């Protein structure tokens, strides 16, 4: 079975065997809060009102109970929350915040500043629909709004992965090759409010995994100080971050940022392996999590919690003799083009599921996968299914309908429509 932590029993013995891990029943929000607690976070700045998540509510309990050393800053908006963690991270702190839907939209301006200043902030995004009309439920519209902001974007499938990935996110963000912020995306309600049994690590093991508190790794020679200093805000060695940079150098200064985001992919893979050695859990190769794709005629790609439901239906279809596979995209930015290409190249038909729509175009991941396929000599047929907007539930029966549609596309040898709205009433 190709499902992350279920492989624990069959694989090699992890450095921390399961009996030394802590089994708990928590929801996705609590799992992320515990992960932040275990990750020695110095500063959490968050807007404490709707659409905030239980993540910071739970974390504020750890602060109130004196269980963490963290400076907790309740601010007046998400714009300020992101601004505050930008300041904290620039001063060398390990900084964390969380938000959802409208809150992420309000952060947007500062998201670009966080990444372009190369600050290793971790942001938990509980994926929820955008207004209007007002809706509190799951879709990926909020996350897709930050798609181009030079953040590393990871999407998790279950509560266990929410815990694991939040810890990994700090390691990825702070890697000297990366130094970019990381967003951990978990589906609103479907994961954030769903209690599942998970394993956590003893806190000190997470400290060891992250190498203790955050260390500022960058150094720079400053002529007015006449010495080399750490790249951080420090009153004793004053530096300016993000000053005026016009058409003479702005473009060149984007190049290392572009390169760093590319390198993030290998770091995500490496951290996934390190986590496997430590805990016995891994999520595919870290960037994609494939099931049954090797000999599949039909492959469905998907992000987030729906992947498990799709795999559940795919297993039924396999038992019925239909060769189907499932490709969960765990790392959405940087997009793992080569890995996706290798996984889907043998298929006759690929169904791309998107829980968001680029209005006037396709679902966002369809565009990435279409770009992936373009360079191939022989390309599978491609169909985009936009599903679950505003929290519309995705039961196995609906997933089965999609597979049946794909079987029909394979039989006919052509897709009647490239974009389909799955589960919408006509």
């Amino acid at each position, binding site marked *: 079975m190709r*499902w992350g*932590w*279920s492989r624990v029993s069959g694989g090699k013995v992890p450095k921390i065997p399961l009996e030394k891990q802590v*089994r*708990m*029943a928590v*929801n996705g929000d609590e799992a992320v809060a515990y992960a932040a607690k275990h990750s020695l976070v110095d500063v959490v700045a968050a807007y404490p009102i709707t659409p905030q998540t239980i993540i910071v509510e739970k974390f504020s309990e750890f602060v109130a109970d004196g269980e963490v050393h963290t400076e907790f800053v309740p601010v007046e908006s998400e714009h300020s929350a992101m601004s505050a963690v930008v300041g904290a991270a620039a001063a060398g702190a390990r900084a964390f915040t969380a938000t959802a839907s409208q809150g992420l939209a309000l952060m947007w301006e500062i998201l670009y500043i966080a990444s372009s200043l190369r600050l290793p902030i971790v942001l938990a995004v509980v994926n929820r629909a955008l207004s209007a009309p007002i809706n*509190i*439920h799951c879709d990926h519209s909020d996350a897709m709004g930050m798609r181009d902001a030079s953040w590393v974007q990871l999407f998790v499938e*279950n509560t266990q992965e929410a815990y694991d990935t939040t810890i990994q996110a700090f390691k990825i963000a702070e890697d000297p090759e990366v130094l970019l912020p990381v967003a951990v995306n978990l*589906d609103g*309600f*479907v*994961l954030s*409010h*769903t*209690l*599942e*049994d998970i394993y956590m690590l003893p806190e000190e093991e997470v400290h060891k995994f992250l190498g203790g508190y955050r260390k500022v790794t960058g150094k720079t020679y400053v002529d007015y100080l006449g010495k080399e200093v750490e790249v951080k805000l420090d009153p004793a060695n004053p530096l300016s971050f993000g000053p005026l940079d016009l058409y003479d150098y702005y473009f060149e200064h984007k190049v290392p940022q572009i390169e760093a985001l590319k390198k993030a992919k290998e770091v995500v893979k490496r951290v996934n392996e390190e986590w496997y050695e430590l805990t016995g859990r891994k999520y595919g190769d870290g960037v994609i999590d494939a099931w049954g794709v090797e000999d599949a005629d039909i492959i469905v790609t998907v992000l987030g*919690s*729906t992947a*498990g*439901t799709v*795999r*559940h239906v795919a297993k039924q279809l396999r038992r019925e003799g239909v060769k189907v596979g499932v490709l969960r995209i765990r790392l959405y930015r940087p997009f793992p083009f080569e890995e996706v290409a290798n996984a889907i190249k043998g298929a006759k038909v690929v169904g791309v599921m998107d829980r968001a729509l680029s209005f006037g175009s396709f679902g966002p991941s369809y565009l990435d996968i279409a770009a992936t396929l373009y360079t191939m000599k022989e390309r599978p047929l491609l169909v985009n299914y936009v599903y679950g907007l505003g929290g519309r*539930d*995705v*039961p*196995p*029966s609906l997933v089965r309908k999609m597979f049946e549609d794909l079987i029909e596309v394979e039989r006919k040898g052509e897709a009647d429509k490239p974009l389909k709205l799955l589960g919408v009433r006509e």
Partner: protein
Amino acid sequence: MFEVRWHGRGGQGAWTAANLLATAVMLDGRHVQSFPAFGPERAGAPVLAFTRISDEPIEIHCMVYEPDAVVVLDPTLLATVNVVEGLKKGGSIIVNFDGDAEELYKALGVSKGEYRVFAVPATKLALEILKRPITNTAMIGALLKAHPLASMENLEKAVKARFPGKMGEANMELIRRAYESTKEV
């Protein structure tokens, strides 16, 4: 996989019941999932919560459409909500109900033998023990009588972690009384 659907009204603790059962089952060493179906959050409005229990890790993430058991925290729901919808053939209906069997079957709109029906006077017991008409924990006791999904020992651990002190003691007393008082009708 065993799937439970909880019917309550906003504020009655259906989600808490789903979580307490899930925590007890987790302590027993099985895999669980529990979650609410959130509508507009209004006190008194009909709400749903779900618990999934399995020996294997649970892959699917969606609502429960064909439960093995439904638990009804508030008998007034029977007049407005079809609590039997989607229930598997021969599945169980566990209701907070203080009356005769014929009346209950009529309120449910099902005939004898279609499903297994269990009744417990949970409101009466809750008023007696908690001095409040809060029936969520009582209905966990009633469910365990119908289906031994979790050990009483681990349920006690879960309840006492959620309700420390006297509140936990009282809820455990209520759970045990409800367990004893639950009858298949």
